[in-house]
């Protein structure tokens, strides 16, 4: 590729960012103080292939979408073959995310209530009048955590420049702050450095990030949907971290020739003219974004019969799953799935479709077991369903 082509490519996605920010933000461009824009600009700096143009890999796409609808599902772990579009799909996610409201310019993406709570907790702060705060709408943040990140950038540290120039010891928020109320994405998560895994586990469990440095102490909310991807053959994931992920999507090489031809053609089209390609998928992108938002709004109205819950519990018990995270995840995911389909009652049909996603990584791993985890779940499901029908 020549230099000019590279340059063209670099600028192209940025244009779309600006356009999108204008369309999406209520406060328009005036509300873009340098600091707030920084993470967004960074996030989009790579070429984002449109989410709706990704062929196949429905399991992964569905898992991601369900997590947008209900972030409490607890994230997705995408494991599978190399070169199957794992990171492409996650990075494409940013474009279909709904908007959230935050206090204008707040680096922690807090809502008014969270903002007041956090700020008033600081020593010597007076009560804040909520009317004095302005809000803005931003797309749900997607923060990329690279493998080489150091702890101070992940958790945040003291802003040295500010300390030097003005003598004030100010906290410089890290990636965890940026990811609050959004997505934190780790590619090759199974290769992540041990001490960073410790940090993540800590924060994920408490929803709080605590930093003590240079004599100041900061705590801020850090609730995020953890998305990890990797190839299982490159290394195993730490069991505690594995358990943190709500869903586990598996991804395999597509063997359908027609689909693969489609992939190649779309990729080539995108590489040739990303702008035109984006435009082509614009409508579908918006449609999906709207559908997700609708589901999010519908979610509180979704209900589930007790008998379904019984079946879910039975399923988890029969599969010998420790703890209750299995049932909880299935329930939440089934709710989100129903909402996504525009339905208000959760049935075993919804459960059936997402049970594998929720339970696959919670079964005990046995290398000598010839039965695939998914098949095992299906078999138990069939039993439970059979019982349910017989009664």
């Amino acid at each position, binding site marked *: 590729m020549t230099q000019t082509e590279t340059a063209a490519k670099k600028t192209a996605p940025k244009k779309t960012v600006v356009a999108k920010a204008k369309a999406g933000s209520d406060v328009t461009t005036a509300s873009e103080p340098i600091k707030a824009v920084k993470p967004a600009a960074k996030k989009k700096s790579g*070429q984002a292939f449109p989410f709706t143009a990704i062929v196949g890999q429905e399991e992964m796409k569905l898992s991601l979408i369900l997590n947008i609808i209900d972030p409490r599902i607890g994230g997705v772990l995408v494991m599978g073959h190399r070169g199957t579009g794992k990171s492409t799909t996650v990075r494409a996610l940013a474009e279909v995310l709904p908007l959230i409201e935050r206090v204008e310019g707040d680096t922690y993406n807090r809502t008014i209530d969270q903002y007041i709570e956090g700020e008033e907790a600081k020593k010597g702060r007076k009560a804040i009048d909520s009317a004095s705060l302005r809000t803005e709408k931003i797309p749900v943040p997607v923060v990329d955590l690279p493998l080489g990140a150091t702890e101070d*950038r992940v958790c945040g*540290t003291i802003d040295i420049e500010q300390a030097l120039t003005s003598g004030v010891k100010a906290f410089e928020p890290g990636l965890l702050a940026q990811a609050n109320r959004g997505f934190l994405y780790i590619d*090759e998560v199974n*290769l992540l450095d041990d001490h960073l895994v410790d940090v993540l586990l800590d924060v994920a469990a408490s929803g709080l990030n605590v930093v003590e440095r*240079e004599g100041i102490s900061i705590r801020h909310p850090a609730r995020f949907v953890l998305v990890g991807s990797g190839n299982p053959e490159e290394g195993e994931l730490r069991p505690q971290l594995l358990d943190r992920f709500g869903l586990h999507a598996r991804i395999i090489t597509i063997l359908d020739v*027609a689909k693969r031809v489609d992939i190649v053609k779309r990729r080539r089209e995108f590489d040739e003219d990303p702008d035109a390609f984006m435009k082509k998928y614009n409508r579908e992108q918006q449609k999906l974004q709207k559908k997700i938002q609708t589901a999010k709004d519908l979610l509180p109205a979704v209900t589930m019969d007790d008998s379904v819950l019984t079946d879910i519990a039975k399923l988890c018990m029969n599969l010998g799953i420790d703890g209750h995270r299995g049932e909880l995840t299935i329930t939440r995911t089934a709710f989100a799935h129903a909402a996504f389909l525009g339905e208000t009652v959760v049935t075993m049909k919804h459960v059936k479709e997402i049970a594998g996603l929720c339970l696959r990584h919670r079964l005990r791993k046995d*290398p000598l077991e010839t039965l695939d985890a998914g098949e095992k779940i299906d078999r138990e499901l069939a039993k439970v369903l059979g019982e349910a029908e017989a009664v």
Partner: protein
Amino acid sequence: MIAFTDIVGMDLAKQALMLLAVDSELGGVVIPSAVGSGKSTLARAFADILPPSTPFVELPLNVTEDRLIGGVDLEATLATGVRVVQHGVLSKAHGGVLYVDSISLLDSSAVSHIMDAISRGEVLVEREGLSEVHPAKFMLVGTYDPTDGEVRMGLLDRIGIIVPFTAQNDYRARKKIVNIVLGTRDEEDTRDELNMLAGFIKAAREQLPHVSITDEQIRALIQTAISLGVEGNRVDIFTVRAAIASAALAQRSDVEEEDMKQAIKLVLIPRATRMPEREAESNEAPPQEEPPQQDEPESEDEEAPSDTPDAEAEEEQKETPDMIEELMMDAITMELPDNILNISLASKKKTTTGSRGEALNFKRGRFVRAQPGEMRSGKVALIPTLISAAPWQETRRRDSKMAGRPKTALLITKDDVKIKRFRDKSGTLFIFMVDASGSMALNRMRQAKGAVASLLQNAYVHRDQVALISFRGKQAQVLLPPSQSVDRAKRELDVLPTGGGTPLASALYLGWETAKQARTKGITQVMFVLITDGRGNIGLQATFDPTAEKASKEDLEKEVEALSLSIQADGVAAIVIDTQMNYLSRGEAPKLAQKLGGRYFYLPNAKAEQIVEAAMSF
């Protein structure tokens, strides 16, 4: 300086680099080749055929994380009191070439960062208070000697072209090489040739956007990838690009059959996990370049591609298999050495038994990164500690003055302290060597499998890795290369062949090689777990030369003894688990344990748990 055109032989590698020069989106070229074949010279000469002033950055194997990704420039930061960014090697290669010699020896964290940079086209620097994005779109050129070990598959997946392993040059080529190295070649000739080639490449780059490929051709390439069992879908894009680049090099505006063959040869075959059955006579196929003679399959392509996928799919089922088969066979037999599978990723587990392996042992426990920590919990990393303290000096001095403390030259607080983190607090590599010969083999294998599984369950905690070598017939074979992955073990150990002779020496040798390779990758402790009765009956000679005469009993013993002593001297721990029924035992296994300086366990009905226990007890 030896120019690109001066390099003799390595034709496939040259073709590969030319394709890359035409289309940098191919991502890179990996060249496996024997030591001294000129692969690194060729890779360095690659700059000759690129546009002038294209960056060419060579990555040293011992690169640290901050040099690779970038970080704070200590000198400048101290001088200015403001954090000054230093770009890493990856971003320095932006728009050009990143060259790694001996890429298979690169440590895994460096490989991960390179993979990450390739997939993003940029480097995210989130370190030491910096948060920056540096563009890093580069072509990766890697060379390595396959006897040094394998390149990580994740990395290979992101590189478009893998050159099939090439054999040694013949004597004419060698003579020419000597002449060039001695400088007896006309420099003017060289310059002319280079200019011509550079012109070719330039023209091809201009031609590139005008080359078109039909749907039918794309489909055929994909079908080939599937038949060869290539993993992933990314490879399709590389195959198509390679075919197009090849057509551009020939100044054509349409992809033709030879371009597709070239693409199959350089992109797909090296990644094959299975080979279509080769017909007997294909071995005699002329190994030279030969223009494709057959032209009938083209007629299918000319048909206007119908747009309904159903019709297309049907048609494809009817028409293409033959054409693909032929295409594939041609590509495979065309000028590829017979041992082509030696480089195919899929067969990598049949680790090559080379003689070099001692390289880079000094890398053991190499320092990779510094992280905050207690001063007493590790070695203090001085420079990173200074980096984090540097910008604070002024404010701290002010504070300390106010507090009335005595003046010191440098104020370092607990927060600044960074300790060194070495490459992997690596655990132990357990190399299981299982005697798969004879009648009891099946049981032994099953138990060994169980032990591998059980060790791997806890592998994460202990940072252990497990490998499995089985020995039977003429030679030992690595069934599971060192791995931490339960999934991988499951796949690789699915079928365990048993029966035949007992090549004990071959197993020891292969185990030792595996141990040496693991050391270059940061493993410090290796333990052999031999599950055998200790009686070898096939000599090492037979491993390399199937026609060798059967070695005498004394020779066999001597061989095993010599190997065992060397292995012991090399610091490899060992246990021998004797599975022989008592009345048959002739004491070979205890003797073997003694020679290896290891412990002997007598477990005639060895259970997986007992094996694990024995291994862990050591």
